[in-house]
């Protein structure tokens, strides 16, 4: 297994970081598929270094108060709310 780029245990670790619960068979299947995809990604090593020219410019606007969503509209899609706030699960 040591030659692999990614094994099922690593897939479970990444899934944990990304907050996606996986079944056992999913982590096995994804590990095999990721192996193939990551091997392909490694062809990027052939790419020469290129000078990057950033084309970015700042976009500014006056800091004026405008009307936005109402509190009711903002909460309309939430599973639960309380006193005008989103209600989430407990932290720990």
């Amino acid at each position: 297994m040591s030659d692999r780029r990614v094994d099922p245990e690593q897939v479970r670790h990444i899934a944990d970081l990304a907050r996606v619960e996986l079944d056992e068979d999913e982590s096995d299947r994804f590990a095999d598929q990721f192996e193939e995809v990551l091997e392909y990604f490694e062809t990027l090593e052939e790419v020469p270094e290129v000078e990057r020219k950033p084309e970015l410019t700042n976009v500014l606007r006056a800091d004026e108060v405008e009307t936005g969503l109402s509190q009711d509209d903002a909460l309309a899609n939430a599973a639960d709310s309380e006193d005008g706030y989103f209600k989430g699960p407990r932290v720990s």
Partner: protein
Amino acid sequence: MTPDDTMSQNIFITETELTGEADGPLADRTVAVKDNISTEGVRTTCGSAMLEEYVPPYNATVVDRLLEAGATIVGKTNMDEFGMGTTTETSAFGPTENPAAPGRVPGGSSGGSAAAVAAGEADLALGSDTGGSVRCPAAFCGVVGIKPTYGLVSRYGLVAYANSLEQIGPIADTVEDAATLLDVIAGPDPKDGTTRETGAETDYASAADGDVDGLSIGVPTELLDGADDRVVEVFWDAIARLEDRGATYQEISLPALEHAVEAYYVIAMSEASSNLARFDGVRYGHSGGFDGNWNETFSRARREGFGDEVKRRILLGTFALSAGYQDKYYKQAQDARAWVKQSFDDAFASVDVIASPTMPVVPFERGSTIDDPLRLYLADANTTPVNLANLPAISVPAGEADGLPVGMQLIGPAFGERRIIRAASAVH
């Protein structure tokens, strides 16, 4: 899940009727809108169980512009979940039939939008194109699709997948109709800081005059190598028709394009892993309930709400950005992106437009690729370079191979929409 639409083609996730102004360039025209573009009061699912019941409280800028132009929006179209796919088979609402090639996929991710136009369910449609998601389904369904220059069309209200790559684009039966729709949606928007003033006053529709006399076309050999022979044959026949009308072509070599697909996927997945972090089931979307701590309930909401391809891309993106791998994958992908961009810039010094088959393959048979992610990714070889370089491109029907639609892609320099629209109008 069953979509509202009972038609067997499964084009719409939600049928609706939103009517706009009485007058305008799109008065009396019906438009289908991809279901990742926000419509106030009409659910916007992104083809995902995660957003099955999500109803946006505001319109995307492009939706406001459609209604101001007099259009009637007839439905929200089926799509690969969050735009992640090339077949419209990753939708939580089931696959869409290809009206132009029964038994085959309509392409993706904007498969429902292209199918709506091909089946006559709408006059026009909007899709979004992150790595080919407007051009691929346009090619597979035998219609016209445009991926605009990055910054021409506002992304406000488009549910984000990979912000640095995507644009909303028009789909229509003819080049002129697609150009007319682009005229309506183009232009700066204070709500999207990446839009440019360049799009403020456009007249793309009048460019569809078929006049290609003196046009020079570059054909990158890299985008023909590995393509289906039948597709290549149809492509050269279309080039010959352009020559008959006074255009000239030359083969060119752009080695950078050989690395576009992998660079695209590293960047798109990395951006997706960050963008889709917002779906935790608290403010909107499928809830993971209230049992356990927030890590547990968020992880549950995301297991239940996301399909396999979305999970794959979030995990691969998380991996590519994780400590120790960022230089190996993400930084190299950005180098490749710069190289692709520079190669196009150099090429446009000697040719007016660049042409290729839109897709190197004919439409896949339904169900044949769903568990083979890498094979599907490679099918995006010809479309992804355009997104990496922020350029405009159009897919126009070039002919048929064994009765299956084949599209030609014409790529232009940044904000060169008129040029590619004119060239495409001579093909179709």
